């Protein structure tokens, strides 16, 4: 082993360590930035190390590729708005998975077309390679569909038809069958490309039937697949840093999807195959009735202005209305009057894990004012006014009180414990679950209709004159 090889190997080891330290840094906002710089440095070292690899004969395409990718990446990184973070993430899963799939295909091609000794392509290697290619391909197309749904190019409603699950399962079974066949007969080129094609198709069919509000879970899951595909690449190339980075990525996605599901009290299977949010489930629980009390802008302004503690509970509607700056302005005005302002963030509020926090941080809300579900609930009984902004399911008291409700057991932000509740929404629209929300009929609740951003902006003026 010459010094280059040593250098490469040590750069990889260093990169692995720095990646782990980087992720450890993310356990606190204060240490996160330093952690990321470590990870960036690790990545740089790994790339420099790789460029010394003895197999490389020409740097032309490498440099072109690096430059092109950096330009694309930097452009995306700088210009993508925070509200579009979910789409960006879905797209990047597609890119990552596609790269893994391509590396796998290139390796397979080299082995089967005489560029690498076929004898080296044993069962273990073919297994890892097939895994890499299958996961990579289905994640690529799945993520693209998720991107389309989030971006509004593909219809967000679940696309369902009879026998869908059976059809998809059959398709998956055939793909896996081909994969197993390939492990024993690695030279079967036709089955290989059929498997590849089917995996691409399966990715599309897997995500199409899932409603767009469930995309966060799907995205986390695809994240996990993309990571595992990278880890499989590591197995194929015998490269530890790939295994480590891929596994970390895979686990991160897996943990996030579990957390999301738990925060909705639903199982992964239900999310993937339940077609939740389709017309079928949307008719459930129409029983509840009563009167909603509408309140006027000025009433609300006076209530807020003379409160001593106000909690904002933002939901999916705030994100779609892009009202994060408006709520911050309102909070500013209230704080100037000496009102204590806090935000209660439900884990599934927003359009991807942690999204609401980023949106509010962008609008200059200090993170010390952002409270998690478990932190804000004990505070609500001492809160004068809770303002629900474009949220519905995450404050639905049925989840707590009515064991027969479809969302029973889902943890909620219990705004109905505060002295007064103001709900900002456009009309009688249901939430993602399609359920009636008894909160709106409670005597403590007042409804203030209108687009969230509009209403909040008007409230700023009204409070200033209160």
């Amino acid at each position, binding site marked *: 082993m010459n010094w280059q090889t040593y250098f490469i190997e040590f750069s990889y080891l260093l990169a692995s360590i720095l990646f782990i330290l*980087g*992720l*450890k840094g*993310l*356990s606190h*906002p204060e240490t*996160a930035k330093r952690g990321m710089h470590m*990870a960036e440095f690790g*990545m740089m070292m790994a*790339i420099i190390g*790789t460029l010394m*690899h003895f197999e*490389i*004969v*020409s740097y032309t395409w*490498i440099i072109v*590729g*690096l430059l*092109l*990718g950096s330009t*694309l*990446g*930097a452009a995306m990184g700088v210009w993508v708005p*925070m509200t579009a*973070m979910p789409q960006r993430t879905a797209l*990047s899963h597609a*890119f*990552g998975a*596609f*790269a*893994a799939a391509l590396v796998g295909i*290139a390796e397979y*091609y080299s082995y089967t*077309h005489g*560029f690498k000794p076929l004898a080296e392509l044993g069962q*273990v*290697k073919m297994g890892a390679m097939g895994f890499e290619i299958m996961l990579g391909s289905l994640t690529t197309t799945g993520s693209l569909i998720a991107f389309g749904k989030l971006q509004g190019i593909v219809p967000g409603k679940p696309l369902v038809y009879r026998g869908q699950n059976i059809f998809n399962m059959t398709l998956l079974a055939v793909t896996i069958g081909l994969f197993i066949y390939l492990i024993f007969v690695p030279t079967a080129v036709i089955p290989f490309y059929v498997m590849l094609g089917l995996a691409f198709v399966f990715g599309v069919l897997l995500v199409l039937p899932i409603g767009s509000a469930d995309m966060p879970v799907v995205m986390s899951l695809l994240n996990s697949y*993309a990571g595992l595909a*990278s*880890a499989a*690449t590591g197995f194929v190339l*015998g490269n530890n*840093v*790939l*295994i*480590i*980075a891929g596994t*970390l*990525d895979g686990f*991160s*996605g897996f*943990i996030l999807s579990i*957390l999301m599901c738990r925060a909705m009290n639903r199982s992964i299977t239900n999310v993937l195959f339940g077609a939740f949010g389709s017309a079928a489930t949307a008719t459930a629980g129409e029983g509840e009735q009563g009167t909603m009390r509408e309140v006027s802008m000025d009433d609300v302004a006076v209530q807020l202005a003379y409160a001593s503690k106000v909690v904002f509970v933002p939901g999916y509607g705030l994100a779609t209305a892009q009202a994060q700056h408006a709520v911050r302005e309102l909070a500013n005005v209230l*704080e100037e009057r000496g009102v204590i302002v806090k935000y209660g963030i439900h884990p599934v509020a927003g359009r*991807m894990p*942690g999204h609401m926090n980023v949106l509010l*941080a962008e609008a*200059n809300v200090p993170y*010390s004012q952002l409270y*998690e579900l478990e932190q804000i609930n004990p505070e609500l009984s001492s809160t004068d006014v809770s303002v629900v902004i474009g949220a519905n399911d995450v404050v639905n008291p049925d989840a707590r009180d009515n064991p027969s409700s479809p969302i029973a057991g889902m943890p909620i932000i219990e705004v109905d414990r505060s002295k007064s509740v103001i709900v900002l929404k456009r009309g009688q629209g249901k939430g993602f679950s399609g359920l009636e929300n008894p909160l709106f009929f409670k005597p403590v609740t007042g409804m203030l209709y209108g687009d969230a951003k509009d209403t909040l902006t008007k409230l700023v003026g009204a409070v200033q004159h209160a």
Partner: protein
Amino acid sequence: MSPTNIITALYVFALAAFLGYQVISRVPPLLHTPLMSATNAISGISLVGSIVIAGGTGPHHSKVAMVLGFIAVVCSTTNVVGGFVITDRMLRMFKRRETKK
């Protein structure tokens, strides 16, 4: 890949899995979006595999593999650079208390 190599690879995988679980379950929900973009960037390390493929020419290397490798380099680099830039951008927005107030 020899059998001993695959076994050590399994060790590395098992240890990384445990470590991933431990480290990531300590990330607060506040930072879940940056976490996702950071892990995206990090898993762009597959770049390392693509570079070697994209750089191979000559009798022992296939043109097809090179082209595939090139596309993979572009995809991975986009993820790495984009991921880190966005993560940095997001993290800069998280402030404990405002400066102006």
